[in-house]
């Protein structure tokens, strides 16, 4: 069973980050929220593995203060 990758895995991270921001450019807050939700569902389906999805949900949670 694969683990959630937390080491850097994206080639050219600055380019990816720019793509992400560009995708939201010109969108209203509501449109951006909808875009993000679609993106999360698309990526989640691509991952598929429930173990990794659970680990990702846990990783995304804000650390307890």
């Amino acid at each position, binding site marked *: 069973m694969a683990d959630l990758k937390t080491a850097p895995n994206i080639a050219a991270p600055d380019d990816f980050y720019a793509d992400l921001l560009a995708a939201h450019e010109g969108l209203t807050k509501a449109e951006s929220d*909808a875009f993000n939700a679609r993106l*999360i*569902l698309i990526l989640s389906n691509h991952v598929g593995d429930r173990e990794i999805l659970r680990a990702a949900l846990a990783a995304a949670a804000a650390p307890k203060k």
Partner: protein
Amino acid sequence: MDQTVETGGRKIFETPLYPYGRTPDQEPGANAHHPVVIVGAGPIGLAAAIDLAQMDVPVVVLDDNDKVSWGSRAICFAKRPLEILDRLGCGDPMVDKGVVWNVGKVFFDERQVYDFNLLPEKGHKRPAFINLQQYYFEQYLVERAFELQRQGKPIELRGGNKVVSVTEKGDGVALSVDTPDGPYTMSADWLIACDGAGSPIRAMMGLDFVGRVFEDNFLIADVVMDADFPTERWFWFDPPFNRGQSALLHKQPDGVWRIDLQLGWNIDKDEEKKPENVIPRLKAMLGDDVKFELEWVSIYTFQCRRMEKFRHGHVLFAGDAAHQVSPFGARGANSGLQDTDNLCWKLKLVMDGLAPDSLLETYDVERIHGADENILNSSRSTDFITPKSEISRIFRDAALDLSERFDFARPLVNSGRLSVPCVYDGSPLNGPDGLAGGPARTRPGAPCPDAPLGDAYLLDRLGDEFQLLAIDADVPDSVEDCGIAASALRISSADDPTGDLAARYLGDATSAVYLLRPDQHVAARWTDYDEAAVKAALRTATGRA
């Protein structure tokens, strides 16, 4: 919670079917006693009565009404309940009258995002679902009860008999019943409460009914119209004619259509039910040129809750009285029929002294498992249909948007997960799974799937007693343990021209012996017959292990 108004012409539900008549029980000093009293002559009470009467258990059904249900109410019946009705001798009229459907369409905003076909598996006698008004469903059950009466079976329906008090006495139940001729009392060894979600019996006994109420109201309207809509289930999220809400259109027999419109929380129910308010809503949905007539209108609130225990001494709760779910999944009446299917054979064995009283505790175990499964599925559907936070609506709409372009998103769209029968995994009645390579769908605890058998069907040969299903295996005609027998049903590959039976019951095995319960659930299975193993499983399956 369920408020109804009459809006249409005369229907079967306006005709008294079991009118009040005075009985000898009402004579002074009668001290009437009955082995089993059932309270409530709805679908579940009638099914329980028929099941018990078929086994020659004398049963009296009390209902303060004398007619079938008012309005369509439950309309969608799944394959498993239809199979149970076959065992009860009244599956045919239901399926002959019902509307069979397989195609569903999902709309979002102004467009259709996708459609689906249930693609029911071949080789089953009964379809995946039929739509049928509850009043027809009850009518056919009442007719079956009368047929049993004519055959001399001990079944009695008493309309106009309202239970006003009930006392569980440890070894039986005492009842007071009000009638047009005044009150009378009776006692019973067992009482089965099938008196609906608002169960007066439950209230009289001061029992809990805990769960979750969803803050939303739905208008149900049954309309009669000559429309050329296809026989499909159409579900709308956020349509132009009901902005921000959902809607459902589904066909029933006799040109009656079920329409559900989500209304939101802060509404005046009495106002919304008035035809002058309902009709404009329907015109907005159907278009101005569609001629229709309102048959029945109701407003309900989604809720998912159940009793902590369904068994309270000699009082047993079944159907909506024990558990309630939101609709949109065909889980209400359908799960109630699985309750009585589970309960009646156990009660019979206990009454006959062949099984210990503790067998009835497994009714709780198995049917609470079923109720929890239904509540889980129903709650999830409701959370999808009526998102209660901004972010849940954002994700809901994202799934709907994506479902138009991408297959992957369609399984995320939840407009009601349609009922499938419960597998009693982990039940104390389950024996060994000794069939190496056997299919998972027929593991101990599972309901038997149907399969063609020559030119007939397997399930028509199963039920009402313990059975040994032998496929290409040697078994004796009957095996008995302490008065409980299992009789053999022998099948060879030659009886299985389609291969469905082998696929569903053998898998990779070359022979199989199944011990089956009277409710057509698998108790245990092996590759070959072993008398000691079968007897041990028979004891386990009847709570005597």
